[in-house]
């Protein structure tokens, strides 16, 4: 009866690592095809342009003590129920009205921070992109965590 002798674990472990790397490479092509062709493919991240995120703490403590203009991108009902004090309502559904309201309070050098409901909503990014594109404002941010995060910070 033959018996088998194991090679040292070192070379075997190296072999496992090489095999794992090759297997990972094999997954790259189907992954790329999924991102390109799958009917339920995820949207490309950052498709709304390079809008930076800012936390509640950072927005409230900008260099030079600059105040910010809060822009609420949620729907009418949500804004009417409660919003960040002094916020301007700027939703895509009532864009021209909101834009006029924002321009009325904007001063040169004032950053605008757009927020929507929570971390997972995308509306603030879309509104911030559109604002940046149409008014060419230099300092437009989205609030990380949105209204939910603001509320959490007030507690």
């Amino acid at each position, binding site marked *: 009866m033959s018996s088998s002798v194991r090679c040292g674990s070192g070379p075997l472990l190296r072999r496992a690592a090489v095999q794992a790397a090759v297997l990972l490479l094999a997954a790259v092509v189907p992954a790329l095809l999924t991102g390109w062709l799958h009917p339920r493919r995820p949207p490309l991240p950052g*498709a709304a342009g390079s809008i930076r995120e800012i936390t509640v703490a950072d927005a409230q403590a900008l260099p030079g003590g600059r105040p910010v203009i809060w822009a609420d991108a949620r729907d009418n009902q949500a804004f009417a129920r409660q919003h960040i004090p002094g916020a301007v309502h700027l939703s*895509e559904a009532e864009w021209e009205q909101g834009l006029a309201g924002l321009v009325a309070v904007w001063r040169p050098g004032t950053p605008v921070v757009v927020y929507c409901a929570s971390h997972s909503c995308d509306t603030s990014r879309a509104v911030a992109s559109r604002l940046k594109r149409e008014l060419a404002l230099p300092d437009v941010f989205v609030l990380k965590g949105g209204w939910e995060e603001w509320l959490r910070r007030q507690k």
Partner: protein
Amino acid sequence: MSPLLPSSSRSGGGRRLAWIGLVTGCWLACLTPPVSAALSWDTVAIDRTAELGASSEEFAFHFRNTGSAPLTITSVQTSCGCTSAALAKQVYAPGEGGELKVTYRFGGQVGAQEKVVSVTTNDSPDHPTLLVLRVKIPEIFSVSPRLLWWSVGEVRAEKQAAIAINPALQAAVTLLPPDEPGIDARLVARPGEHGYVLFIQPASTKETRRARVDLRIEPAGLPAQIITVYVLVR
């Protein structure tokens, strides 16, 4: 020798195979989530290019209750106030089909847009189905930037906004008088570039000032639109 089995499989194979099958079966039974999703959709993503000048678009998502019990659609939520969804009813019998109509009002949005509708049913309350609308909205015209501003005391140089018209359209652009005095505005056509340039200059930058300059844009065959360019001295 099969790579699936250990090398000592030559004898007593039947009992051992049964043992492996039992272990694997128990494992899978513990891990496999119960299959209970009963709402089956024809498609969960619709891609479309909107017609030039359209202000909204309607989409229909067809579904069927493929389960063995009546299914209730408990909530339908849209990702944006610009989309609304309508269902004929909420409860569907086994085998019954239905349609979710989604209306997307563009409201001035342009370019590649993606909106999501989240549908929750009683049999899967923690895991809604996400329906995706991917719409390319052609731009009729663009005015950029729509805010021209000077600081108080700044040299009152002329500043400009570019108006670009979709090359597939002809449009007449008219400059309306500013709503405040002391703002000089002139519109210059750039036929080679299928657009215009709006030049604006305040009469003075010694004090704060706020004005609106409106442009009337009339694309051929489409409703006229008024677009505002804001002028600030702050």
